[in-house]
């Protein structure tokens, strides 16, 4: 089903602090913008697939949202894979469309941890509180330290990811954090939870983003401008909590990418631009390795000298990613991938024809890959 479904529309709210906005209100704005973007009405939508708000899980949230949007979808509900869910839902939408379960799917996400509660991010699990084992940054830092110990990965490699994201975000008028960062400034920062510094960590952000998925044939019939074909997708679930994970420096991202590459009929050398889930800098480095852009343990060599910056061999997160555009878990990366394939990105990669997008969740527990084309 390579390329038989497309992303026909994209929409978002502002990113940053949106006090006083419920997630339903933010969803409504993003969905309206996505429908306007592809020029169709709400009555065309017959599937509503939702990643629930991370900061406030709620039963039947997908149905409550459908009511708030005035939609009675054939296919609908919430899918929980943490930060992998948005990309996975786009894949499920394509599969449901391919098998005649629905025709036009909206995939949407909204959350307001910046203005609302972010308690869900800091709590300890099980016995963790007895050891002071709090917060998500420490869990990713535990993986980063192992990677540094096994492969000699230096702080400069982590820093290169932050520097690239911040350069791209600074150029993005809609980014939440538009302050560039030099490698020297990064290295001079005090540790937060070592080996991480503050700028290894994603932003906390309010906002929503949505996409409209339909068949390429339907998009042509509706006269959609610049539909972006979904060439491939895949998933992989590492599952084990990092305490129990036998190998900390490899994840099922490799399996996810291999599935997507096979479906799309392309490989790493064919990719012109990447949008990698960068909740923490180590995630981008390990995704480069697990996806096959460099050998395991060699990410530090790969990211040197601006290689992942706009103008480099593989521009990554050209709108700033979770580190600079918005801490939203993943949909902004899909939207930037669509803009790159339309040739409409703020930092457009000239002639880009293939974009890979990663979404991942938990502490590298879940992984999902999309490959977009033109």
């Amino acid at each position, binding site marked *: 089903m390579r390329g038989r479904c497309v992303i026909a529309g994209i929409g978002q709210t502002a990113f940053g602090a949106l006090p006083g906005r419920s997630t339903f209100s933010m969803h409504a704005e993003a969905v309206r913008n996505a429908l306007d973007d592809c020029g169709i009405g709400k009555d065309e939508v017959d599937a509503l697939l939702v990643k629930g708000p991370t900061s406030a899980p709620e039963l039947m949230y997908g149905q409550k949202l459908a009511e708030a949007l005035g939609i009675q979808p054939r296919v609908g509900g919430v899918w929980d894979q943490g930060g992998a869910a948005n990309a996975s839902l786009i894949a499920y939408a394509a599969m449901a469309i391919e098998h005649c379960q629905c025709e036009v799917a909206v995939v949407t996400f909204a959350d307001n941890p910046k203005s609302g509660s972010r308690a869900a991010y800091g709590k300890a699990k099980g016995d963790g509180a007895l050891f002071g*084992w709090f917060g998500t940054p420490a869990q990713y830092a535990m993986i980063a330290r192992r990677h540094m110990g096994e492969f000699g990965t230096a702080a400069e490699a982590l820093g290169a990811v932050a520097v690239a994201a911040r350069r791209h975000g600074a150029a993005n008028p809609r980014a939440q954090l538009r302050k560039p960062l030099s490698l020297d400034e990064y290295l001079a920062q005090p540790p937060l*939870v*070592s*080996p991480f510094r503050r700028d290894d960590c994603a932003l906390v952000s309010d906002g929503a983003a949505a996409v409209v998925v339909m068949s390429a044939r339907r998009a042509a019939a509706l006269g959609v401008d610049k539909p972006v074909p979904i060439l491939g997708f895949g998933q992989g679930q590492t599952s084990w909590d990092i305490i*129990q994970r036998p190998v900390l420096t490899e994840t099922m991202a490799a399996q996810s990418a291999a599935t997507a590459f096979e479906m799309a009929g392309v490989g790493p050398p064919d990719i012109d631009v990447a949008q990698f889930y960068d909740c923490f800098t180590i995630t981008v480095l390990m995704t480069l390795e697990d996806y096959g852009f460099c050998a395991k343990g060699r990410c530090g060599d790969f990211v040197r000298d601006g290689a992942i910056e706009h103008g480099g061999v593989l521009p990554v997160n050209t709108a700033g990613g979770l580190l600079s555009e918005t801490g939203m878990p993943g949909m902004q990366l899909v939207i930037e991938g669509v803009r790159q394939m339309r040739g409409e990105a703020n930092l457009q990669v000239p002639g880009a024809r293939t974009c890979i997008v990663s979404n991942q969740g938990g502490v590298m527990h879940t992984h999902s890959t999309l490959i977009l084309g033109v």
Partner: protein
Amino acid sequence: MTTRQSQDDVEAAYRASLARGHLSFQRCACTEAWLPPREQCPRCLRADFRWEEASGRARLISWVVYHRAYDDAFADRLPYCVAVVELDEGPRLVSNIVGAADPEALQIEQPLQLRVELERGIPVPRFTQQDIPESTAS
């Protein structure tokens, strides 16, 4: 096991062992050994296990050093070290490395030694770099 043990049962057994100064883990008839306590073997999914006391020898898988307190109870301990530790017998657990002069200078795979200590009255398994006798802090 003739009687199926609940999650509460296996956690109580784990705590009782710590209170006696030992770190115990479950071992299945299929030979799989694990922590944290579970109702059944994560490999064969049967509930045919017994408890074993760990030797106390372990190695360092990875560690982080907190320079910011995410909870007030740890504010006066900064910087402190949280680690993933693998027992010689196989099970892994989250713990603290205590008594390290420079926690940034630890090395992955370095040998560790169990030391059961009290945390706000609750016995917890911590680790040191040196081979020192196991003791229960009071």
